[in-house]
């Protein structure tokens, strides 16, 4: 029995909240950047200070150090240990269990088969693709034998097709393992696809599901809407578009479209031209900046049109932008999605 109960759980950033997750359910907490989603997961994992009580299967785990909680935490970045190969990464996950070498090898094989990564055996983790890394990271978390799984937007940094595929796999896997899971996301589509139960978090406070039902989603990540003119369809499965004098390329999804959505967190923005292909780039001027503890929200004027861009806090600290500064941007072509 691993029902999760939060009683008055909070800290400096989070208002005290009560929440119950049924045993084996997948609960999704939906909210915009800076709402306190990651903070809540970090509290539950033992990585941030806590007020209140956390009961997992009736046992108080809120005062235990992180390594004694039997909680699995998968963040946006997989953090595979680069000095260890794939198998050693999985083995490290089993340290707490104190298993023999043979039992570890058996469990490793089971998990690699389950996650579809058996063909990656022996690979150096730095050579894996983003989707493969996230699969290995999930296998490693499961290897640690968690009683509760915490997922912090684990597909956020992946190509949307791979993310969709992994989401479907996760749902099947979670059902199969009946592992109590709390996932946070700012993606409404993802939340609705995965959740057995759902709540909304905003400004460090839990609100009710009714918010979603009324369709009031203004606080969620609002996508940019680009009204484009379609120039031509290219043979490589691409569309050539024109938006405010800029030439853009998008994936051809087989239907004519003039309105495209781009999530603010999908756009790359910085002081210098980003690396990568020399298409879908733009030069803009920063006209507004709002920084919270999780991300920076930037409004950038591009040929007279405003683009909303969200930059993760860690990257923002490395390369902050000031209002009035010139900024180089890039819209990944698979992130331009037809309305």
């Amino acid at each position, binding site marked *: 029995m691993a029902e999760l109960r939060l009683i008055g759980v909070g800290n400096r950033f989070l208002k005290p909240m009560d929440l119950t997750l049924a045993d084996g359910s997948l609960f999704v907490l939906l909210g915009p950047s800076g709402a306190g989603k990651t903070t809540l997961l970090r509290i539950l*994992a*033992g*990585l941030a200070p806590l007020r209140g009580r956390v009961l997992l299967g009736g046992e108080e785990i809120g005062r235990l*150090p*992180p*390594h*004694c*909680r*039997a*909680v*699995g*935490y998968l*963040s946006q*970045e997989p*953090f595979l*240990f*680069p*000095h260890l190969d794939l198998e050693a990464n999985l083995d*490290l*996950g089993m*340290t*707490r*269990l104190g298993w023999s070498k043979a039992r570890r090898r058996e469990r490793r094989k089971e998990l690699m088969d389950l996650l579809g990564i058996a063909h990656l055996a022996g690979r150096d983790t730095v050579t894996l693709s983003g989707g493969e890394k996230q699969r290995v990271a999930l296998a*490693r*978390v499961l290897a*640690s034998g968690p009683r509760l799984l915490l997922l912090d937007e684990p597909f956020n940094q992946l190509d949307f097709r791979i993310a969709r595929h992994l989401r479907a796999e996760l749902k099947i896997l979670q059902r199969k393992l009946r592992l109590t899971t709390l996932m946070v996301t700012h993606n409404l589509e993802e939340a609705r696809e995965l959740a057995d139960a759902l709540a909304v978090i905003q400004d460090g406070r839990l609100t009710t599901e009714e918010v979603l039902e009324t369709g009031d989603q203004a606080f969620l990540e609002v996508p940019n809407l680009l009204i484009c003119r379609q120039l031509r369809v290219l043979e490589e499965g691409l569309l050539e578009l024109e938006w405010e004098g800029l030439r853009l390329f998008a994936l051809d999804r087989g239907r004519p479209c003039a309105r495209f959505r781009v999530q603010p967190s999908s756009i790359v923005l910085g002081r210098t031209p980003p690396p990568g292909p020399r298409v879908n780039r733009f030069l803009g001027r920063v006209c507004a900046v709002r920084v919270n503890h999780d991300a920076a929200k930037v409004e950038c004027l591009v040929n007279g049109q405003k683009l909303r861009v969200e930059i993760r806090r860690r990257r923002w600290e490395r390369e902050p932008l000031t209002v009035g500064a010139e900024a180089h941007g890039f819209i990944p072509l698979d992130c331009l999605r037809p309305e």
Partner: protein
Amino acid sequence: MGGLVALPLLGFGLLVAGVVLALVVQVDPGELWSALRAEETLFALRFSLEVSAGAMSAAIPLGIASAYFMSRRDFPGKRLLDALLDLPLVMPPLIAGVGLLFLLGRGLLGEPLARLGLGLIFTPLGAVAAQAFIATPIIIRNAKAAFESVDPGFQETAMVLGLSPWRVFFQVNLPLAGRSIAAGVILAWARTMGEFGATLMVAGATRLSTETLPIAVYLNLASGELGIAVSCALVLLAVCFGVLVCLRLLAGGRGAKKRSLPWPSSA
């Protein structure tokens, strides 16, 4: 353009080669060979290696543990302590030696240590203490930067996966920061091998007793024994060169690509 810029490089390269050559040609090869095999040279080499090994065995755990703590914790007065730990790096070694002499001699720690049978002043143990004092801040500086360069996400991941704090240190943080820490340790060791001022003040300069390689150079130059002085100097140079080669190997040949880039004008 490329040729002109290379001139200062060539000039300085010749100067360095000239210094080494000037040492070698001071004595004839026969005398140099016998000086290299002289009892005093061999003693100085062995003593230097033993003392530096002793100093490093104290400085490595002390330096790495201090650096780990400094890189992972915030506490009041951290900046002040950070500056204080850097002081031995900029302090003239002679002054550091005088300070150690007063502290470990008749000062605060001298008598309690003597009661424990740990006489440090003018003993080989004193040389170890002096060299550890010089080497530790070098290790702290390098190891702290190395630990800080490891993304805290790795540590947090390991903790949540169930690794105890000790395992997190030995299985995650130390291997991830290992290369830079090793470079710092090698630098610190080279510094202890060439250490003169602090060792002289704390351990003295007694022939065949507290005679490290630099002290052997000093004593034999003072007494006009050029052969032994030069041979000890050459042994020290060889050690330093070996250290540089090790550091290049640790850097993983990353500089090679940069060196092979053409000058913009010739592109």
